[in-house]
């Protein structure tokens, strides 16, 4: 056997020793305004929870981008899925994060109160199992998530076709991260100097898709999720800005290969094709979503179930859109902590456990 230490890949990276030094390095850097955007809900939570924003130098602004899949899902998609859940003989299956998100007329919880059968699943394979166990019902899974999740949904669709589970359907509202970052960079008035890139999205897509951003002079560092990972990534970004040599770097090298995960990409691309998609806050972005390919049309809820969600609109007074694009922060919202709290959320950014409003409310807000 080897003489390497046994690792759990969790506790070791949570040791606090190096964090102070990494923070020192940040504080010793030359002062100048820098705006770094994180685009992963798990980073958003970690930055709030561990006080990284407060501990960072004042000239360094850490802003949240469209990193929470629940938050960027448009009300049109939420309302469409809710309408489907109310159809007779349907079991609506979803990850737990979506349950409390308010739609225009009601949320999934409200649909449940009206008699819809809504099942929370941990994995797409659980949803597929529901379909097998309930052959008389139609199971519709709400496909929400980025490149991390889309291959797992694709795997379930492929397995459904292979096993003849003709009562399994997916409503695909998946989103792709790199097109959204490019769209963000084109938004007038938006000043982002660098991206802290998502670790687990990148475990699938690798480093290459961020290259066009780096070529435009925007450093991209793919970061792990522990405090030390994030602090190290911030230093790597600032090193790049100092040297003027903008690249895609991988801090989270233990989990991310430069080429991503080819088998997962192949699964995703065999079932889904890119399509234009509507993002909350960003509007419609070309080729930023995933639609189910023709070969799997029999499992595509959008093709099979006709529903009308033309009444959809965004919640009044909610500035989630501006928050998701880093133009505003939660305390800028008049409803924040007044008429919008985690117990009575108005917008998805307060509902989702990874939403920016929820993160601020929980960790960075004092009465």
């Amino acid at each position, binding site marked *: *056997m*080897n*003489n*390497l*230490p*046994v*690792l*759990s*890949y*969790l*506790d*070791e*990276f*949570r*040791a606090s*020793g*190096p964090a*102070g*030094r*990494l923070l020192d390095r940040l504080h010793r850097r030359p002062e100048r305004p820098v705006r770094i955007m994180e685009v*992963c*809900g*798990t980073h958003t939570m970690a930055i709030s929870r561990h006080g990284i924003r407060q501990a960072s130098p004042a000239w360094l602004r850490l802003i949240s981008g469209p990193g*929470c*899949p*629940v938050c960027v899902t448009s009300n049109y998609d939420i309302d469409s899925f809710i309408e489907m859940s109310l159809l007779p003989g349907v079991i609506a299956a979803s*990850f737990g*994060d979506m349950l409390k998100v308010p739609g225009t007329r009601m949320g999934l919880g409200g649909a449940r109160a009206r008699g819809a059968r809504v099942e929370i699943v*941990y*994995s*797409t*394979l*659980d949803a597929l199992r529901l379909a097998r166990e309930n052959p008389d019902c139609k199971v519709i899974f709400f496909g*929400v*998530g*980025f490149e*991390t*999740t889309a*291959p*797992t949904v694709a*795997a379930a669709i492929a397995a459904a076709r292979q096993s003849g589970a003709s009562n399994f359907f997916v409503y695909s509202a998946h989103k792709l991260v790199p097109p959204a970052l490019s769209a963000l960079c084109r938004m007038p008035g938006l000043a982002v100097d660098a991206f802290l890139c998502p*670790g*687990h*999205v990148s*475990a*699938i897509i690798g480093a290459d898709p961020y290259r066009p951003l780096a070529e435009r002079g925007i450093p991209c560092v793919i970061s792990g999720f522990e405090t*030390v*990972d994030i602090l*190290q990534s911030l230093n790597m970004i600032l090193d790049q800005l100092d040297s003027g040599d903008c690249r895609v770097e991988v*801090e989270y*090298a*233990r*989990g991310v*290969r430069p080429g991503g*995960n080819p*088998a*997962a990409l192949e*699964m995703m691309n065999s079932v889904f094709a890119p399509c234009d998609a509507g993002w909350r806050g960003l509007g419609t972005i070309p080729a930023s979503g995933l639609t189910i390919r023709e070969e799997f049309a029999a499992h595509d809820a959008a093709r099979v179930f006709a529903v009308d969600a033309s009444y959809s609109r965004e919640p009044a007074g909610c500035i989630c859109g501006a928050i998701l694009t880093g133009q505003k922060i939660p305390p800028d919202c008049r409803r924040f902590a007044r008429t919008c709290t985690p117990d009575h959320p108005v917008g998805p950014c307060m509902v*989702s456990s*990874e939403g920016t409003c929820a993160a601020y409310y929980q960790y960075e807000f004092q009465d």
Partner: protein
Amino acid sequence: MCLAVPAKIIETDGQQAIVEIGGLRKQASIVLLPEAVTGDYVLLHAGFAISMIDKKEALETLLLFEELAPPGGRPGLSGPGPEDGDLGLKETPAADDE
């Protein structure tokens, strides 16, 4: 939502595997990571192994953090290790780790 946790592959059976996370065993799919074999550490997301965890890279990152830790203070590793505070991270990765 893109949460993934380290898990150890205990056994595989086709596209299925038993994995261990924090002492608990559960079923997982390795259809997205067909190269995974018993003993590998993987990142598990929503019941699927989505990426291999690279031990050498993990150690290099820890080593970097260890160098940044306060002198004489607790280096980047928690858990059992040699008394002198050097937790053996500087040993060269053994060949059979590949």
